[in-house]
């Protein structure tokens, strides 16, 4: 029974990793850029929810749409100011630019709000309950389900709307997409906006039960890269499944050893996956 509990806990947190990883994979798929600053959008969204709660008493779950909109805007700004100019750059320049953004946003948060952790003590989802012998923590379950719903919405948008299909066309072959009349620049901006918005929602969901501090994002975005690698770089669906896998792996690893080692298992998993299948477990090529 304890293993069933570990599995379920892993899947619940895996849904969050899945949502974070889908946004990463979206940018990688469309622009072939590894965005190290992905987790920083999440961290900023968490602070936004905190201040909306502290200043106006808004429930962080109610703030999720605000966080999504704000991060969408920030994602587009980051694209316009930085990412757009990296399209033709070397991989090294691209990686340094996004790593520079990681350092910049973390220091920015540290500078304005200090390193102290902040918490939102409770919201409407606070509480514990049991279903059939399995225990659930209210905020964690709500966050997992919220991530699942957001992932579903992103999936629907990308596969069922004309804009989403245009985005996929750009990911497949930007030159052909341009010939077909797709404005690739707008699609790139949209990819950054959507990526930041979805990880912003993840931040809002996590702010209901996690401590908020400047480095919080990296603990989610770096493992999410492993999910992207497992799912095959650039595959949105693969990233989702990869997120569930690393959720279970880190929860089981933490359970079997000590919670401070849980991410170690995720990083080792990356190495195992790329050594066995250099293009990802579900990847093609």
């Amino acid at each position, binding site marked *: 029974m304890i293993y069933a509990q570990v599995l379920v806990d892993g899947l619940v947190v895996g849904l969050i990793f899945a949502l974070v990883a889908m946004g990463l994979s979206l940018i990688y798929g469309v622009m072939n850029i590894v965005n190290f600053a992905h987790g920083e959008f999440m961290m900023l969204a968490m602070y936004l929810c905190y201040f909306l709660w502290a200043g106006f008493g808004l429930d962080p779950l109610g703030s999720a749409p605000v966080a999504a909109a704000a991060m969408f805007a920030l994602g587009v700004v980051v694209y316009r100011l*930085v990412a757009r100019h990296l399209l033709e750059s070397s*991989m090294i320049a691209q990686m*340094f630019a996004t*790593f*520079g953004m990681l350092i910049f946003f*973390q*220091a920015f948060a540290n500078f304005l709000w200090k390193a102290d952790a902040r918490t939102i003590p409770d919201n409407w989802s606070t509480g514990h309950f049991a279903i059939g012998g399995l225990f659930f923590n209210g905020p964690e379950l709500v966050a997992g389900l919220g991530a699942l719903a957001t992932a579903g919405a992103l999936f629907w948008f990308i596969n069922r709307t004309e804009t989403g299909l245009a985005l996929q066309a750009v990911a497949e072959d930007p030159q052909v997409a341009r010939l077909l009349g797709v404005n690739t620049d707008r699609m790139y901006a949209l990819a950054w906006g959507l990526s930041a918005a979805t990880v912003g929602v993840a931040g809002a969901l996590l702010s209901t039960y996690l401590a908020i501090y400047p480095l919080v994002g990296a603990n989610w975005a770096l493992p999410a890269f492993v999910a992207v690698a497992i799912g095959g770089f650039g595959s949105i669906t693969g990233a989702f499944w990869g997120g569930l896998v690393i959720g279970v792996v880190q929860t089981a690893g933490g359970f079997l050893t*000590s919670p401070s080692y849980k991410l170690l298992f995720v*990083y080792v998993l990356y190495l195992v996956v790329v050594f066995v299948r*250099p293009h990802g477990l579900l990847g093609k090529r």
Partner: protein
Amino acid sequence: MTSATVSTRAALVVPALLVVALALYPLAFTLPFPRHIVIMALLFATMGTAWNILGGLAGQVSFGHALYFGIGAYTTAYFYKHYALSSLVTWPLALAISAAAAAIIGLPTFRLRGHYFVLASVFIMQAVYIVVSNWSTLGAAIGLELPVHKAADWVDAVWHLQFHGSKLPFYYAALALFVAALVVFQWIRRSRLGLLLNAVREEEDAARSLGVDTMRYKLVALVISAAFTTLCGMFYAQYVLYVEPVSTTSLIVSVEIAFVAIFGGIGTLWGPALGAFVIIPLTELLRAYLSGRIALGMAGSLVDGGVLDYLKYYAAGGGGQLDILIYGLIIILIARFQPRGVLGFFRRLD
């Protein structure tokens, strides 16, 4: 006299003058702080040059070099703390561990290309960070402190590698490391190994199809690069007398090492030194100024109320990090506007 001999002569005279200037610097600047800044710049110039052997010559971009820095720092700290053996004695052990780690990591990861390789270096770095910051033998997150030794005479001081009266011995040790790294880098670049590494960087598949054992040369480049980085780690531990995970085996330190090379110009001889001598003094001065530990003599005139006072108030308040904010901004600006590094402008200097 042909222009070729002029440029050959310049290629020897200019570096020689630079080294002489660096050797004379501590005689002109006798206060500890100006010496400390150049010691740190020399340390990062050495590590950037070492990184450049792998990243610049072989084209293998590693975000994990702090691992080798940590191997040097922790080996020194552990054996000095428990057995009072300084790195004068333990350096062969540290270099052996460094070479073993390089082989263990290089053999599997050098099969990977592009993003996969870089991310592997990131995750190995993260994994090592988790292990080190939980490993009680290495002091876990708190780290290891090297006991201070009051030397009886200079022989005793050299045996313990502890010089507290003056930073001069550390300064010249750092300068020697830096010159050695430059010489080795240039020697590799001009040798057959350099040609083979160039082939690995430009056309790995073609090189392999011609029968070049690319794995072997990448490993050689990594072991040499790691060895210099490990020596820097040993130097750092003896110099600072305190070793902990965030400032030694973290991803951020790895990026700092790589960035001095990127800033100056990847693959160039003088690029990492240029990067280190711009970035390190800038951040060190900014940090010192903002935390108010030294008076630059212009505090009164520069900060006259208003926005700057506000900034300074925040920056001084413990978690400030304005220096890191500016550091992040510099990385973004270089990657965005001058991705080939500052020396990308002045190719002739190289």
